[in-house]
């Protein structure tokens, strides 16, 4: 077991390094000179030379990469010259708010997807099953912003039930103080996540139901409710844990479109706005962070999976 964890950890570190390298290469691909962008058009050649010297911009590629890694290890994700703030400070306020949006959606979609997935599997090929599959198919095939737009149209424009813009508070707790504004973004993201989860839940539940121990439990005369709760739920939960583990990074990183539609102040919107004003430092800082979070999330999912299922031993 420990050997497995160590190996997985090693792989994760390699992948994180790969992410930083790709991000750094992208940074390098940018046209123009960083010195000129920051010092302005009137900068003298000496000033540019000094700037390049200070920021190691005239060193070979891998030396620069080494400085970049060093900078990352010290927690410095870059500096936004346009906002005159470090990327960390921008993200410090964004990430907790992302947690509210992503966390709530994840919880709600699990609460909906697990029971409906099991119900669909138990009543396979019935009207309930077809209805559920139809709904999740439809949701699965729509772009995220389309779901958001439809919700806005019906709940905000036609019937003025909820506001179409998300609350703009500076803290996560502040976001929770305006539940009305949170409803549409959370609902959109929940529907999107549910679409992805429900198909998986359903097929996982169907596979579990085909197992012999379910048949044994029923043959013993166990009430159906207990069969479902004690045997089906627990064994399908392994699949759910994998799904949740893979989705936790998405909580912080997969919300860009929803944030853009509802003007939700999170890391995704930050990235999008940085892109519009060509603030590459911010874009790349966020990309590295997102990559690292994803790798860590996958690592947690794999380890959790190995702990839960005693048959999984690498």
């Amino acid at each position, binding site marked *: 077991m420990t050997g497995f964890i160590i190996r997985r950890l090693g792989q994760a570190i390699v992948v994180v390094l790969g992410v930083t390298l790709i991000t750094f290469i992208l940074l390098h691909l940018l046209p123009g000179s960083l010195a000129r962008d920051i010092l302005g058009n009137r900068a003298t050649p000496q000033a540019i030379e000094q700037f390049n010297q200070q920021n190691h911009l005239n060193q070979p590629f891998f030396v620069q990469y080494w400085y970049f890694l060093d900078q990352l290890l010290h927690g410095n994700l870059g500096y936004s010259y346009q906002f005159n703030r470090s990327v960390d400070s921008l993200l410090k306020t964004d990430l907790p708010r992302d947690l509210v949006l992503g966390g709530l959606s994840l919880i709600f979609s699990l609460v909906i997807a697990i029971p409906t997935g099991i119900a669909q599997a138990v009543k396979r090929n019935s009207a309930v099953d077809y209805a559920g599959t139809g709904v999740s198919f439809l949701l699965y095939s729509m*772009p995220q912003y389309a779901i958001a737009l439809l919700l806005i149209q019906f709940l905000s424009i036609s019937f003025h039930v909820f506001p179409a813009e998300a609350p703009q508070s500076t803290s996560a707790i502040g976001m929770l103080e305006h539940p009305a504004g949170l409803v549409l973004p959370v609902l959109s993201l929940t529907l999107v996540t549910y679409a992805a989860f429900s198909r998986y839940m359903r097929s996982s539940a169907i596979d579990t139901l085909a197992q012999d121990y379910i048949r044994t439990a029923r043959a013993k005369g166990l009430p159906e409710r207990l069969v479902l709760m004690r045997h089906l739920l627990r064994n399908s939960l392994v699949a759910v844990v994998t799904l949740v583990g893979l989705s936790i990074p998405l909580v912080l990183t997969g919300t860009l479109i929803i944030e853009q539609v509802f003007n939700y102040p999170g890391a995704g919107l930050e990235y999008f706005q940085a892109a519009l004003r060509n603030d590459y430092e911010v874009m790349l800082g966020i*990309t590295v962070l997102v*990559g690292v979070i994803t790798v860590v999330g996958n690592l947690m999912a794999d380890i959790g999976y190995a702990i839960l299922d005693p048959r999984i031993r690498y």
Partner: protein
Amino acid sequence: MTDIDTTAPSEVELLPPPEGGEVASSGSPWVLVARTFAQNKLALVGLAFVLLVILFSFIGPIIYKTDQINPNLIAVNLGPGGGHPLGTDSSGFDILGRLMKGGQSSIEVGIAVGIVSTVAGLIYGAIAGYFGGALDGVLMRLVDVGLAIPIVFLFIFMAQIYKPSLGLLIFLLTLVSWLIPARLVRGETLALRTREYVQAVQVMGGRSWRIITRHIIPNTIGVIMVTVTFQIANAILTLAVLQYLGFGLPPTTPTWGSMLSDGTTYLQDGYWWEVYPALIMIVITVVAFNFIGDALQDAFDVRLQER
């Protein structure tokens, strides 16, 4: 022992026919797949829709000619009716004609990305899975790195640096899409390389390349075909998202995604025809491909085939 037994024929002809009746030939595996596919109503619906959308996008503009290049500021934001079955948008372009032209880029990009990404991914995955060991480790780490970086982020970044064009879009979308087929085919290859027929070829001295191309890849055809379909669906969806965010083709090119983003500003004014037709086109196309992919998945599942 050189005599062949010649006593059989007449006696065999006198045997009564078997009790359950003669067993009909079940047909080749492909026939079985096609038959199971055809039994799935949704799949047929999906296939029909895909064909309709292709006809609509490519033959449509030949029959129904509209000007998608010059804005017509007199006929701005008109509702459906008169010369414009689906109305006009904020630059005076006819919506129906715009849908047709938009479909062209979506379908072209979707199918191109779907096929190329799957082909690239399957070669990569088959090599990684077959050779295993350190090569597999390195190749799969690269895939993990690719999967860790969010697609939308990468795209927005690339779009800032390079001028968007159809070819570039196909290239970038393929670049992010080949990862999933690579993983899938690697998994299949890991399972297949322990089969006896592979071992037989190895014993006979067959080269690795021959084994991969003649034995392993053909046996993953089921997974590959399903993957291609889903890749096409995802590519169309991702393209719509990119166009919506403004990072697709040049601004005035008619595309479904950009129609949606242009139209949403007018949602509050009630100009529904600028938003919903494009949305319905996207959903129909993606759902159709998903139906086909799902049905193919079931069709290749041996347990569901009726022999």
